[in-house]
């Protein structure tokens, strides 16, 4: 697939603070790409630069091979679905969707056909004459999507479009958006901080932090092969342990040598080791590769969330079997459950569960008790 949009060395600062730092990214035609990251990581700014609402301080933006860095928003073949819908309150549902067509002086007949087609797509037939302020959040978002798609843009930008909806509706809309994207076959650039949303909808995920791209990949790549501690921690739960590469496919952590599947590191190189909580098996202490003491157990429905103290480092384990708190258990880890990452500036900041959940509560309870 051809590159449709390309960002080359894009930088943007607000009041001297860098929000995006020389970003390079290309987006392919008909792709569902998600910019994922915590708030303040620069994802919305990136989207606004593509949409034409902000101009980059440095760098170029290309659309279909043509530079559009200085093209104003209304001349770009890109439409946006905003977080707060941004429907026009003085127009009804029909007129809101017809708005971009009227600007192009499309005939009344054609407008009618196109708007009806859009209403069908977003399942809002019969709502034509309603005032937009009488609609629910989900309905308003559908109108916004219909309005953005009616003039057949090449790219649809979506800025946390489901952020204001409740969980159930959000799940439905996720499916609907994916279906719409596949049906009309255009590029969607989606911004969210919800990793689950990103994993379930995207073809490609761009993980961002501190104005920089941390990793670009398919959802499975991002989850299974995170590039650094930030990505590993942001996407799902993970134990991130300091390790040392002894040789190819052999890593030492918590004084135990594990077999793994990664190679290409120098001998004795310090690394970050990611082990997902669901990949750790609980076994009897004598059969375990490592042993530790259970400090807390939380029932989560599908599984128990167990925090285990192994040589002073708190691991999170997800297991369907109950383990008693204070018990000593052994853990067993398959070689392909171990993922090795190079050290980065995020090393040591994430992936330790010592300050996690229950203990924090206990601490703050103790603090509160002292005050009385």
């Amino acid at each position: 697939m051809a590159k449709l949009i390309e960002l080359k060395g894009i930088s943007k600062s607000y009041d001297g603070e860098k929000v995006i730092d020389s970003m390079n990214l290309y987006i392919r035609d008909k792709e569902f790409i998600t910019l994922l990251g915590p708030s303040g990581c620069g994802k919305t700014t990136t989207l606004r630069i593509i949409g034409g609402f902000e101009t980059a301080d440095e760098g170029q933006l290309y659309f279909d091979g043509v530079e559009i860095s200085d093209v104003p928003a209304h001349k770009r073949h890109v439409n946006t679905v905003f977080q707060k819908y941004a429907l026009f309150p003085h127009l009804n549902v029909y007129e809101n969707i017809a708005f971009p067509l009227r600007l192009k002086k499309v005939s009344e007949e054609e407008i009618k056909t196109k708007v009806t087609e859009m209403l069908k797509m977003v399942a809002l037939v019969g709502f034509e004459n309603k005032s937009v302020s009488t609609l629910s959040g989900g309905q308003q978002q559908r109108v916004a999507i219909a309005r953005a798609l009616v003039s057949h843009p090449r790219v649809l930008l979506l800025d946390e479009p489901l952020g204001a909806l409740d969980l159930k509706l959000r799940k439905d809309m996720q499916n609907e958006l994916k279906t719409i994207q596949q049906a009309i076959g255009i590029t969607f650039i989606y911004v969210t901080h919800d990793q689950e949303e990103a994993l379930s909808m995207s073809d490609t995920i761009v993980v961002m932090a501190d104005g920089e791209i941390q990793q670009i990949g398919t959802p499975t790549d991002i989850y299974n092969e995170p590039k650094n501690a930030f990505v590993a921690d942001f996407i799902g739960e993970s134990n991130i342990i300091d390790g040392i590469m002894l040789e190819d496919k052999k890593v030492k952590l918590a004084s135990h040598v594990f077999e793994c599947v990664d190679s290409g590191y120098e001998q004795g190189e310090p690394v970050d080791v990611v082990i997902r909580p669901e990949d750790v098996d609980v076994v009897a202490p004598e059969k375990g590769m490592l042993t530790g003491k259970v400090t807390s157990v939380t029932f989560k429905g599908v599984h128990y969330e167990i925090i285990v103290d192994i040589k002073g480092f708190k691991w999170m384990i997800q297991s369907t079997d109950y383990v008693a708190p204070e018990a000593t258990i052994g853990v067993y880890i398959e070689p392909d459950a171990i993922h090795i990452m190079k050290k980065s500036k995020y090393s040591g900041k994430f992936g330790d569960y010592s300050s996690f959940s229950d203990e924090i509560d206990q601490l703050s309870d103790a603090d509160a008790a002292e005050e009385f």
Partner: protein
Amino acid sequence: MKKHLSTAYLVLIFGILYIPILTLIFFSFNSENSTAVFGEFSFRWYKELFNSPDTFTALRNTLILAISSATIATVIGTAAAEGIYKMRSKVLKATINSVTNIPMMNPDIVTGMSMMLFFVVVAGILRISYDDMGFVAMLIAHITFCLPYVILSVLPRITEFGDSLSEAALDLGCTPMQAFFKVKLPNIMHGVVSGFVMAFTLSLDDFVISYFVGSSKFQTLPLLIYSMTKKKVTPDMYALSTLIIITIFALLIFSNVRSGREEERRKRKAARK
């Protein structure tokens, strides 16, 4: 007891406020030229009012002036409010805001005198007589003192409206001009109309500034009434005042009903959320 007292107080206040006006309205229907004797109910003074060419010209002048100055002030004021809203520098924004408020804070007499001085100088430079500038001078003066009120009424609307809908309009293919007229203006219209009504009434009853700026060639009603008080006030002035009161009252009701309706709509909107 307490309740009676408070009722009495209320009656007293409203009495002081409205009895003089009611007296004036009452005597405007008097068939006699006297404030001591009430002959019978008649429209005599109203007829005389409209038969006097001076009064009629003054009324026409006042309306032309009020409508044109309010219209121009509304256009300039709305554009200015949009401009102030779009300013990036906070210092500049605050400065411009206070500068535009000066005509509002300034005593009318000072504004009036400075305007007069200014027009005298301009007339001198252009080598025309001051009297020839009559309408234009008056128009400029009225626009000037109406402007801050229009900005004051439009700016909060624009701020409340924000950028997101304008951005959506641009995104959907509007030029910045189209985005303003098709999306922003319809949504801030209430503020624009209130600004116009305010400017209109201010211009309608302005005396002090008009007194300084005005010339013999362009007389407005307040000026005419004032010049008549130097002689004996005839009851046709009562009739005229009554008409002005009724006009202002109607405008007041109109704008109150409108803002009341809007308030209701907002409440309903809020309740749904």
